[in-house]
């Protein structure tokens, strides 16, 4: 049988398993059906209920405007799938092509998609994390619980971590006039994603809205009362603050543990795949039948020197899912690369923050349009003299222009003046804290001598 016949046969009555039934998984399933896949489709997800949207959980759901169960993702078409929900996948057997569930069932497949995403990084001290009033926000149950706690009018909310989620939650609390302390180890909020200049603006914004912002400090202990309710937090500078709600917003952990023994290239940084979403095995060889999309995927981006990049962005999940689905049912020559320029957005303290490109891939940043003082501006990021990203505060309509500058590797700083260019616009160092990428440690060792024997073995993580 020719390859084309095999592909036609697979499209007609093959078996696809999608592990991870959230945004990327659902969109991939819809795209598979759009592409004409008529075989058996199985969706595996550890959460019960319909796939839902997560961005509103730290915004409209927390304000109470939208109920936590009101963010169910719209269905773009019928996907005619078998849903296995509430039981996580526990292993992947590539020798026999099946997924193992935590309850022992095995689900066979011809091709599969890994879209298991990210979970919230919990507070590291288990007993403290278990105190009443300590929250993370990743699932709708998390958001519902925090929404109730915030609606009850706490005397103070402590937010640990001033990334996007932490800052959005701080904003919602201040909107309700609830006293808020934000603790951030870095020198300012958002600095890890957007660099020092934007970080300082974000810090000013938080303080102007009455946030007790404490940067450069670590929370060393969460203290509970006799009833097991959180009541106080202690900081590395020796100070303490009383708070009856604590939100742990320390980012996410990629859900890859279940793939530990699969022989795929997995680690804390995700599941490595090519630009066409095909997973790499441990040796860095591309596989044929295993695809990856969404927050858990880590793929090389030709726009950024083919570096492997993982993105926890809504639009990336959607676009990558569609590419993965297309490539699952296409012959090699018809496959598409995932080449879209990343975008994300956040709403906090009355400001709509939007970004295009990869701001962390930059050495300089310059305000190109608008006014920083008014929190209405666009800043362009550059790397070695070309534009690599842009961030807007309440000025998103310009970003399409910057997307084109990124796509065309346009010179940085942009040479021609614009009508509302700040008079003192000068590029400054972008200044991200710490070499985070290098701090992860090794994940594999290489064995063997002859080229035909050289193999990689996964190392157990010591984290």
């Amino acid at each position, binding site marked *: 049988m020719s390859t084309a016949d095999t592909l036609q046969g697979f499209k007609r009555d093959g078996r696809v398993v999608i592990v991870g039934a959230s945004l990327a998984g659902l969109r991939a399933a819809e795209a598979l059906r759009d592409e004409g896949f008529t075989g058996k489709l199985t969706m595996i997800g550890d959460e019960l209920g319909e796939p839902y949207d997560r961005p509103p959980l730290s915004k409209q759901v927390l304000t109470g405007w939208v109920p936590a169960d009101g963010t169910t993702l719209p269905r773009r078409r019928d996907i005619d799938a078998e849903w296995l929900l509430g039981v996580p996948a526990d292993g992947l057997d590539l020798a026999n092509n099946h997924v193992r569930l935590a309850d022992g069932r095995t689900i066979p497949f011809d091709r599969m998609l890994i879209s298991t995403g990210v979970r919230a990084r919990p507070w590291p001290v288990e007993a403290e994390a278990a105190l009443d009033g300590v929250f993370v926000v990743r699932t709708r149950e998390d958001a519902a619980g925090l929404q109730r706690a915030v609606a009850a009018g706490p005397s103070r909310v402590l937010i640990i971590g001033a990334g996007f989620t932490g800052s959005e939650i701080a904003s919602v609390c201040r909107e309700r006039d609830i006293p808020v302390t934000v603790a951030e180890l870095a020198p300012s909020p958002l600095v890890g994603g957007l660099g020092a200049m934007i970080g300082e603006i974000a810090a000013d914004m938080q303080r102007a809205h009455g946030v007790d912002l404490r940067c450069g400090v670590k929370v060393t202990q969460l203290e509970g009362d006799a009833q097991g309710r959180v009541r106080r937090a202690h900081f590395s500078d020796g100070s303490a603050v009383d708070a009856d709600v604590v939100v742990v917003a320390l980012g996410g952990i990629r859900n890859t543990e279940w793939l530990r023994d699969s022989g795929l290239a997995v680690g804390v940084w995700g599941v490595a795949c090519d630009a066409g979403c095909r997973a790499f095995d441990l040796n860095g060889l591309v596989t044929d039948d295993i695809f990856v999309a969404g927050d858990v995927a880590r793929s090389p981006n030709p726009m950024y020197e083919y570096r492997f990049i993982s993105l926890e962005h809504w639009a990336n999940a959607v676009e990558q899912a569609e590419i993965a689905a297309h490539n699952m049912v296409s012959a090699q020559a018809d496959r598409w690369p995932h080449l879209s320029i990343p975008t994300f957005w956040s709403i906090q303290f009355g400001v709509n923050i939007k970004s295009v490109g990869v701001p962390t891939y930059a050495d300089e940043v310059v305000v*190109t*349009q*608008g*006014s920083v003082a*008014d929190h*209405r501006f*666009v800043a362009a990021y550059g790397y070695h003299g070309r534009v690599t990203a842009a961030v807007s505060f309440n000025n998103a*309509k*310009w*970003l*399409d*222009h910057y997307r*084109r500058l990124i796509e065309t590797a346009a010179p940085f700083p942009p040479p*021609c*003046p*614009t*009508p*509302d260019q700040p008079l003192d616009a000068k590029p400054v160092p972008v200044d991200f804290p710490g070499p985070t990428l290098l701090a992860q440690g090794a994940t594999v060792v290489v064995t063997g001598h002859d080229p035909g024997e050289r193999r990689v073995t996964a190392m157990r993580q010591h984290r």
Partner: protein
Amino acid sequence: MTTTEAPDILPRILDYSNRADPYPLYAELRKTPVALQEDGSYVISTYRELSGILHDPHLSSDVRNLTHPMPAMQERGTPSFINLDPPEHDRMRRLAMRHFGPPHTPGLVTGMEPDLTAIVAGLIDDFAGKQRIDIVDDFAYPFPVTVICHLLGVPREDEPRFHVWVNAIIDSIDYNPKTDPQEKLENGVQATKNLRQYLGGLLELRHGHPGDDLLTRLANDNGPDGRMTDAEIVSTANLLLIAGHETTVNLITNGMLTLLRRPEMLRRLRTEPDLVVPLVEELLRYEPPVHIIPWRAAYSDISVGDTVIPKGSQIMLMLASGSRDPDRFHDPDRFDPDRQDNQHLGFGSGIHLCFGGPMARLETQIALTALVHRLADPTLVTDPPPYRPSPVLRGPIHLLIDQN
């Protein structure tokens, strides 16, 4: 190369004899996506280049950035936000939007639906007993005019007065000093002065008097950006009055013309009410009310494709051509309301995206739905119908139909 001279295509597009069907000329024009004209201006006609430049911060809407300013633009008084750049544009548009749409006034447009439906029903009631109807004079003109008057707080009965001024202003938009009589420009300038004086008179009565109309709300605003000056309110009201009744009339009329040319589509709309939403979007792509942004200015050198448009150049944007670009839209000359991915340029794009777009959409959806339901077996009397003079705001001046 994107730049070559295409010397006679633009004049032919502007020529009245081609008003009924400029689309083949647009196709010719698109062979040169960025076309340098004899007078040093640039004409852009392809989708990719248009959507790129509409988001390009180096493109200015302020006449003061032209090396050779448009004649008499300064005499027209305080510019409205359509002719301003950030930050002034942003401030004025924000101040106006506070009273028109989200986030401050989210329900205004949808809240007008019952009123719009009633106005439409009343106009169609007046068709009773008439065999021949002019869709323009009897319907598509009075409907949006009534709406914009109500919204702004301009007395409906003053329409005969400002109608003359608005027409003279529209006529002068595409004034060409080489081919047009000076009078055309002077009439436009005088009409602008008259209209502004009239609106200024209405505004004076609004200060300190609460009310729901836009003039009153702008006159008594106290938001975070402060209040517009009276001159700014007049220029804004002037813009909204003209845009609010010289564009929707064309969209509704073009819509009816398009449906009458496709009776099967007209019948389909009767039985599939939800079709009206994508149908109006397709109309905005296929027969948009605004065909051309007659001028913008290069604030500094602008790169479009491999062309550099020098600072100070005048740039003409052929939006309707971009929406028919086969490199962007499959089978672009086919009217297809089922079209997916219909990101047309009917309302422009970028920071100057049509302010009244949501209102125009709703008006047209309601108007076309009512017309197809209530007109009995309508037929076109003349095809093509006679057109208005303007190549910029293009549409029939009359659309006669017979109902049986």
